[in-house]
């Protein structure tokens, strides 16, 4: 019940060499810069691009094993959400969702009823007869998700599913997408260049650079132990899950943070390591969040120094080399971490 893929694609001067295993129910995010080969990997999994070598298998079923086997896209049990959704403009939202069911042989009535259920699940029952151009970005994204999920795919592929949305829509759509992915029993591969999307939505990250995986593992693990400067910059994000009540967020693994925007319920809070300042004594003045931390590791990067700190909560801090010299600390030393409430972003989970 696992997707095994050894993706080998050679095109012009670009080579993709990526191994991927996805367990049922698991969400794997391919994270990397534009041009790293993420979308190529996705297209190969979808059957829109044949492999040059390697294989793609679901359990023991081969989907692509050059030169012998190639199952074209229309015969793979997949669902794809494209970056700009590619909803069919001449069909209504309902007909878009029903399209895959009809194509796979469902009767008109059955397909429309099922499509209606799916629109209901994504909260768009009222927009069944709306044409895509009259939908907002967030609504179009949800129709695209419903269309991809309606056929009951074994493998769900998401290509930058949130990239086309504006910042405010993005928050709510991301939270909704997270819930649908949690309910989805099949395998999910998500492609994104946004570390926050990847860390919030995925169970496992695969960092792709120049067509190769440079690191993989659970998001927290990758963030704690970035193997290269590139990964450190990319996923250098303090990210926690917690419960918000007003401006106070109680973190799931201990600690309380004060945030600027009031919220309620389960949330993600995130702030960059550069927002954390370190002090030898409890700082006075404006920072709303101060807590005691112990230095566990110090890592030199090109322009900054990343300090890994244990405490409630544990935190990453980027400081300048000059500050490091002033503090004169090493692993095991105790410090105070300070963080302004305005530096913390809160996202509904």
């Amino acid at each position: 019940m696992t997707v095994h893929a050894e993706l080998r694609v050679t095109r012009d001067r670009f080579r993709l060499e990526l191994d991927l295993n996805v367990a049922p129910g698991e969400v794997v995010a391919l994270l990397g810069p534009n041009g790293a080969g993420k979308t190529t990997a996705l297209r190969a999994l979808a059957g829109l691009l044949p492999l040059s070598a390697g294989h793609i298998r679901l359990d023991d079923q081969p989907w692509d094993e050059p030169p012998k086997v190639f199952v074209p896209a229309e015969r793979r049990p997949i669902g794809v959400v494209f970056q700009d959704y590619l909803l069919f403009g001449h069909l209504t939202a309902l007909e878009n969702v029903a399209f895959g069911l009809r194509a796979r042989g469902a009767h008109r009535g059955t397909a429309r009823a099922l499509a209606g259920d799916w629109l209901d699940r994504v909260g768009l029952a009222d927009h069944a007869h709306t044409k895509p151009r009259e939908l907002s970005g967030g609504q179009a994204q949800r129709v695209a998700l419903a269309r991809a999920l309606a056929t009951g795919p074994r493998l769900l592929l998401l290509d930058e599913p949130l990239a086309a949305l504006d910042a405010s829509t993005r928050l709510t759509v991301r939270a909704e997408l997270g819930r649908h992915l949690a309910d989805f029993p099949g395998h999910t591969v998500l492609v994104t260049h946004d570390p926050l999307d990847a860390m919030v939505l995925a169970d496992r990250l695969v960092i792709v650079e120049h067509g190769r995986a440079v690191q993989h593992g659970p998001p927290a693990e990758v963030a704690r132990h970035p193997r290269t400067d590139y990964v450190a910059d990319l996923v250098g994000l303090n990210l926690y899950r917690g419960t918000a009540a007003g401006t106070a967020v109680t973190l799931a693994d201990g600690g309380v943070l004060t945030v600027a925007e009031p919220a309620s319920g389960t949330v993600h809070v995130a702030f960059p390591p550069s927002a954390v300042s370190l002090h030898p004594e409890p700082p006075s003045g404006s920072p709303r969040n101060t807590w005691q931390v112990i230095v566990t590791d110090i890592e030199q990067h090109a322009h900054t120094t990343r300090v890994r700190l244990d405490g409630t909560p544990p935190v990453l801090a980027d400081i300048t080399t000059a500050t490091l010299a002033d503090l004169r600390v090493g692993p095991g030393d105790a410090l105070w971490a300070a963080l302004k409430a305005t530096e913390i972003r809160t996202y509904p989970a």
Partner: protein
Amino acid sequence: MLVVPALLGLAFLLVPLAGLLIRAPWATVPDRLFSAEVGEALRLSLVCASLATVVCLVLGIPLAWLLARGDLPGRGFLRALVTVPLVLPPVVGGVALLLVLGRRGLIGQYLDAWFGVSLPFTTAGVVVAEAFVAMPFLVISVEGALRAADPRYEEAAATLGASRWLTFRRVTLPSVMPGVVAGAVLCWARALGEFGATITFAGNFPGETTTMPLAVYLALETEPDAAIVLSIVLLLVSVGVLAGLRDRWIGGPT
């Protein structure tokens, strides 16, 4: 410096048409319009042009698809070949059709021997001649629309389990419909006005192959007033086509 030649050009295009209206024998127009010969020629023209358009749609849309999407070598050359009838003098087209489909022609001799079918000098021959001349209009229009359409929609349909044929019918064709309609109307208008290939391949038999343009030509020798009336009818049909296309074609996409 540009206004004078521009106005001259405009006059050059419009004055002959105005002359047609000025010299029309208006007193006898209704009688002539509803005379048997005019009615017969008009009906034959409309039927043949419509049938030719259907033939062009059935053969031309797949051809346009092949040119736009097909993965074949020498596609540019093939596209150039398809447009040859566009610039070919129609009478040459008629001669070519005779050589191939005539009773002794390359293919015509077998049509005659095996099926007893002979196309030249029949109504079916008119349709063949018109389709030959008019098809490039449809192919070019549809191919342009296909090339402008985003092929990723077809990929999206494939990931939803749609076969190539279903994708073509439910996704590709609807998205290029404006191009198909515009192409079909141009194709129909060209077929309606077809003269050279028709008279060469199908001859001039009243009621069978005498379409409006042929009737105009015939009438000009014997009965000039009738030729003017027939011409006005064709002019009105052309203006009607332009008016119908205005939104889709001349004004650009709406």
